[in-house]
């Protein structure tokens, strides 16, 4: 049980990943589908940050830090920040596509937005 608690962030990330994928794949509304994608993104970001976590550790700043103090890993935090920014850009771009699609098709239903196949 204690083991599960220690790995809680990873468990949560896994759950979020599955929830997000389920939404992205099964929801018929385009905006809801994009929300699912955002949840998947959050899951991956959470996984990244959690993988750098250490119990009883301080922020990785050397100034005024005690000699030999345990620090969390800074690399993953930098990566996550970058990934969040990229995620914001992709979400904004995809939402703008959705706006365009709605303007011309007057629908957001995934099953009706398939004029390319015709």
């Amino acid at each position, binding site marked *: 049980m204690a083991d599960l608690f220690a790995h809680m962030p990873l468990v949560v990330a896994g759950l979020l990943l599955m929830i997000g994928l389920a939404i992205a794949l099964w929801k018929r509304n385009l905006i809801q589908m994009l929300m699912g994608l955002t949840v*998947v993104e959050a899951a991956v970001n959470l996984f990244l940050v959690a993988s750098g976590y250490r119990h009883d550790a301080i922020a990785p700043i050397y100034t005024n830090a005690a000699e030999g103090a345990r620090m969390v890993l800074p690399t*993953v935090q930098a990566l996550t920040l970058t990934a969040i920014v990229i995620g914001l850009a992709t979400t904004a*771009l995809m939402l703008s596509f959705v706006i365009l*699609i709605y303007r011309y098709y007057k629908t957001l239903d995934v099953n009706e937005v*398939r004029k390319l196949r015709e």
Partner: protein
Amino acid sequence: MNTVLLHSPALIVGLPIFAAILLMVVSRFGEKVRAVVFFAGIALASLAAISLAEQVLSLGAVRYVFGAPSPAAPLVPPDSGGIPVRILFHVDAAGALMLLVAALTSVAAALYALRSEERASGREYFYPLFLLLVGGVYGMVATGDLFNFFVFLEITSLAGAALTAYRIDHGLAAEAGLKYAVVSTLGGLSFLLGVGILLARHNLLNMAALGARIDLAGFGVPEAVAMALMIVPLAMKCGAVPMHQWTPDTYSRAPAPVSAFLLVSSQASLYGLFRIGFSLFGLSMDVSTVGLFVVILAVLSMFIGVTMAIPQHDVKRLISHHAVSQTGYMLLGAGVCLAVLGDPEKVRVFGRDALAGSLFHMMNYAVYNGLLFLAAGAVIYRTGTRNLDRMGGLGRTMPLTMACFGVGALAIAGIPPMSGFASKWVLYESVFRYSPLLSMVAMVVSLLTLASFVKVFQAMFLGPQRAAYAAVRDVPAAMWGAMAVLAVLTVLLGLFPDVVMQRLLLPAADALINQTAYTMPLGGAQ
């Protein structure tokens, strides 16, 4: 001059991105200034890429350390505990090949875009996005860092999606752009998760150092999961079956010069797949299983791509389906090489040739398929229709376009003396040693491709002239010039395959096969 050469790895990415930002600033000064800045950005980056490739091919792999006092600083700083903390660009012969491909096709596509997009609105956004796409592709093939690769992958995806949707086209292009963006985002996240697993396990992001570490520590379950999470999205982004559904939609709706360069961005994903398969995991994974998996994907791609292409009536959709089929050829050679990687004798006898053939096909494909997209775009530019049933007799009024399309069609069908024949021949020969059946399949697919293009050529250019297109003229000089560049390249690559093979392709194949050459200076620090 030496300083420029020294910093060329930074310039190939820096120049396009800088030009993109500059364009946003100077776009108020009118179309002339915009066009000059745009083309200068592309051309200068190409020059830097070509000089870098030349340097790599004659002097050996280049490593460029960012954020260090000098780019040649020690790769592993002495106080870093053996971890290469800085981001590096790492270009070896395989990367140089990709740089050359991107440099040549980007110039042709940009030249074409100057005229073909002339009538479109919103060019102040088109040019910067195109520059970002080019910069992203250079970054993907030059970087030696996994997370950096992810960032450039996302830059190309974003720019590619935005450019695909750029003409809106009553929502159709926006739909194609959304499809590409969703596929890319899911793929990118999967890739990032794989990178995260490797980072959590080995504390490394540098591909060379990571490759050496995995080789040493062994290939466990987490590595297998990470490999699947990284290889699957890259296979998806290069348009391999069964994740190819986005390719016809995206390629066919994007403006012609964008389709031509999107091909190269797909090639960059394929390059990433090779790099990860050969250099990062290489012999530490079960190569025969992974190789067989790639070969199966390849055969399915070749076959399904071509059978889907034959009934198409939309010329760009048809070419896009062929793109899937051609990707299969590239995967075939690489898959065969991967499958026999464990046996040095087999690698020497045919594995190396199979990989070189696959790289050769990659190079040729980027040129001739780009040419086909540009030529089809030229016809659409003049006639306004993309439906093959409504075209006909255009050979009389557009002879130059017909000649260029003809060269591309002969090349894709593998007819000598075009480049497609040379690379397919290398593939047939080497793959035959692995399994004669696979070679037969590749030949049958080639025949079907020929049949399909005979039909297309006939429908577009031959037959009676249509009254509606009697006044159609050939395309402007810039568009025709861009096609001519690619057509000449297609012929040259077909006429001198030996030179290309010895100078470029075999070194590139060796750079991929020889994992320790890639990992050595960083692996030694472990």
